């Protein structure tokens, strides 16, 4: 049996953390409880962030949006600020797990689990999201891609939590795209995913683009080189075919029960090819 603490505000949380320095923290529990069942969690107690209102919600602040770390995936899917500004994130949330898991799981949990296959990460990478980290006495902010160090590894120190995610609005990007390849249509762990933001001109020319692949390396893969190759061109098959081998070269996938590394390499390349036929 483990003790579970359910603080209702940050003040209470800091007090509990001080008294239970060894406790594990969780929000929706959709990752943590799986580990608990597999006996991978040895801490004597658990602290749940689910009831702390300060950590939830979406706040518009000028050209920036702050997403509370404990916002559930469902709440974000239904949120008009997210829908309006970050379709790339909505598209990913739409294929994350299932409605039941989305009702429980949070964006902060998805980030802190730092799974190579986490579905919100590629969109948050192309959005250049920043993570807000808080402890009892301090607060800091850093780029998401700096925050995630490897599979399951983040910069989070003892006594710290992720309180929010800051994302700048991206009015220039007029085409948001997310594709996930999994073993089925729901409740699927990504085998490969690709998030894309495009700025396409009236002449169908790429003026700007950001790309991020998931599940093909220990952390999300981005490529300035490929982005540069696409800018200034139409997304013709020819242009994409030229860029595709680079995608194959920069990913570092593994073989697992879901797919071979070879397949992941091939599909990482092919998802790029698909961009030519993505509808606006």
């Amino acid at each position, binding site marked *: 049996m483990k003790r579970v603490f359910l603080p209702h505000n940050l003040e209470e949380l800091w007090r509990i953390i001080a008294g239970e320095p060894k406790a594990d923290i969780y929000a929706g529990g959709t990752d943590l409880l799986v580990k608990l069942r597999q006996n991978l969690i040895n801490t004597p107690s658990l602290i749940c962030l689910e009831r702390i209102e300060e950590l939830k919600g979406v706040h518009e602040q000028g050209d920036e949006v702050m997403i509370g770390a404990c916002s559930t995936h469902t709440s974000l899917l239904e949120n008009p600020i997210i829908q309006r500004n970050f379709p790339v994130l909505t598209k990913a949330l739409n294929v994350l797990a299932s409605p039941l898991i989305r009702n429980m799981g949070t964006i902060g949990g998805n980030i802190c689990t730092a799974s190579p296959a986490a579905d919100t990460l590629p969109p948050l990478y192309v959005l250049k999201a920043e993570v807000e980290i808080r402890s009892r006495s301090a607060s800091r902010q850093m780029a998401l891609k700096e925050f995630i160090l490897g599979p399951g590894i983040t910069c989070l120190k003892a006594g710290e939590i992720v309180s929010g995610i800051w994302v700048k609005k991206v009015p220039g990007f007029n085409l948001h795209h997310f594709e996930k*390849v999994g*073993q*089925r249509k729901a409740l699927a762990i990504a085998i490969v995913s690709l998030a894309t933001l495009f700025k396409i001109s009236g002449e169908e020319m790429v003026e700007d683009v950001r790309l991020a692949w998931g599940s093909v390396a220990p952390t999300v893969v981005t490529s300035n080189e490929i982005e540069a190759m696409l800018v200034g061109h139409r997304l013709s098959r020819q242009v994409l075919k030229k860029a595709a081998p680079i995608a194959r070269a920069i990913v570092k996938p593994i073989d697992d029960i879901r797919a071979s590394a070879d*397949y992941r390499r091939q*599909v990482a390349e092919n998802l790029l090819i698909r961009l030519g036929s993505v509808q606006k």
Partner: protein
Amino acid sequence: MKSLEIGRPIPRVDAYSKTTGQERYAADYYGENLVWAGVKRAGIAHALIKDIHIDDAKTLPGVISILTHKDIQGSNRQGMIRKDQPVLADNKVNHCGDAVALVLAEDKASLHKALDLITLDLEPLPGIFDPEKAIGEGAPLVHEGHPQGNVLFKGVLETGDIEIGFKECHAVVEACFELPHQEHAYLETEAGWAILKENGQLKIVVSTQSPFRDRSEVAEALGINVEKVRIIAPYCGGAFGGKDGVTVQTLLGLAVFHCPGRPIKMWWDREESFLASPKRHPARLYYRLGVKPDGALHALDVRFYYDTGPYDHLGGAVMALGLEHACGPYRISNVSLKGFCVYTNSPIGGAFRGFGVPQVTAAMEQMMDMMATQLGLSPFEIRKRNAIRCGDKNPIGISVTGSTGFEECLKTLEEHYLWKKRNEWKSKAGPFKKRGVGIASVMHGMGYGPVVPDFANAKIELTREGKFRVFSGVVDIGQGNASTYLQIAGAILNQDMAHMELVLPDTESALPSGSASASRTTSTFGNALIGAAQSLKHRVLQRAAIYFMAKEIKEVDLIPGGVNHFTTGKEIPLSEMFHILDDSEKVAAYTFTAPTAKENPTEDQNLRLHGVPHLIFSYGVHLCYVEVDELTGNIEVKRYLAVSDCGRIINPQTFEQQIHGGIAQGIGYALCEEFIVKEGRVRTPDLATYIIPTALDVPEMDSIPLESYEPTGPFGLKGAGEISIDGPLPAIANAVADACGVRLFRSPFTPERVLKALKERENREFEH
């Protein structure tokens, strides 16, 4: 209230209690002073047991008792035909899920600690995992003493002359197909609850398909008097064949003697269920098919291997049913069929919806399309030209009698808009998508075959409250047959649901009946129930006629809750009839045994024992639309149609649920389900790695029943529980071939395999 009628979609009686969580499954039984039982499993595929170290675990606080094979008085063997599975392994481990020690503990935590503390001293033996290799020279033996080595059972069926037949052929197609283990993945994992009563009765509540057979298996394996064993079978939270045989029963039966008077519970978690439960047999099938110039099938040579794992969990019967269905619903005059059911150290191969038929259908129906391509015929045309009809001899030489609606199914398909509009739909594929349409014919035999009696005993009584109580002898494993029983009895007794009552199977109150399996559940028990209901009705009316001083019995009839005398308009409630009738008149029972084929396709008595031949078959034809993504290899099933001849339909809703469920499970079998064990280690230990379809992966499905009339069935019905799982794999395979010209001979058709095949085709085209 209106009385129940045949052919109407009445709501299921279990719908409310299940959706509100009130229905009590075997897994829901607890009780005061509960003991938790659990099993230490081998974790290795093949080994000699040198020692089982239980001392550390035994002294753990909270541990009541730890038992091994030494504590078993009886044969320590269970099984249905060949009893070769130990309750607790004695000298050898034969697959990674073998049970080696049984722990009884005060609580779950102590149980798990104790299981971890037990260590096994095992001497590994070389394992054998490929059925074809297992029958080769020098292969390690799974059962040293078995006279046929690793061949559990071999079956041969021949008609005509296969050599001459092929010489007369105009075109020949040949292929080898490989299919994987499929896991049942029922919602409710194996669960049971037991107690040894003061009077010496061993009472077991268990999630099972076969309470009456379990009773004798438990008694024999443990060396106790069968009269002392009582099995109670609540609704199963799914079974699909995986609970047709002993799971926790014997273990609980052994446990109770070590804590008499206390309730004991065993409930496998998902990982244990995956590890220990039987699976659909993996198969390798070699097919060679020859035709005459007009497309008439003329010769078929089949040799196949079913991997049955180490025990006969109905494996022989599964293989035999595959053998009997290997030719599909067609006329073929020269046939040679050889099937091998082979022992290996893989997971146990056992009963699974379809029972050996999905594997052969996968092969035969792809052969039909390959042949059609070779001949330049449409897949529809080749099937139509060879379709079996009533009065034909089937390929194994048995006359086709009874309702045979296969041609009608084809006709219905041909006129359906999904068939007519297929080319239009195919032409509208988006970029990087290829669309294809595939069809597959299906047939499925019903019942146990010629030797093992396919019987049921129905019992029905009038209660003090004026209701008719039906004692079901056959478990409802989720398919809804219990409701159908009330519908059948209610229709005969002219009652509404409010005046019908159901008692789920209990070996103490129900009369012996066969298992919930073999697409026989509604047919065999339904026939028995008709007899019992009619007999009770007659008795009630005879006595009511006297009561009303009627001249003839025709003047009275049952109405919901009572009996009506037409001539006077007077009524008597059934609750009053209860007092008029003597106890001996309030209950009626009736036996029904399914008819068997008169002809005999084989001299092999053993093959007959394993179920060949069947007399009554359901038929159908399936169609699916698929879209293949050339960039990922992903196959999406976009639309599905199943036309079925399962005789008359008693409850259209229940029927449709069966067809839909089978299609969904069949789509999983075709696209993603593959239980992988490597050298005794399970690589797909849970639902995160063993992929079953979700609601989003199943397309809109149309089910059209033909409603032919089968004279031997209750109200004209035939079996419908299995046939729909036979079609999806070949229909999808054929659709994929239609879409992009590749055929995968190994399933499931994962995106990775498809993409590889597409690439290989591209490379070939490049070379040419």
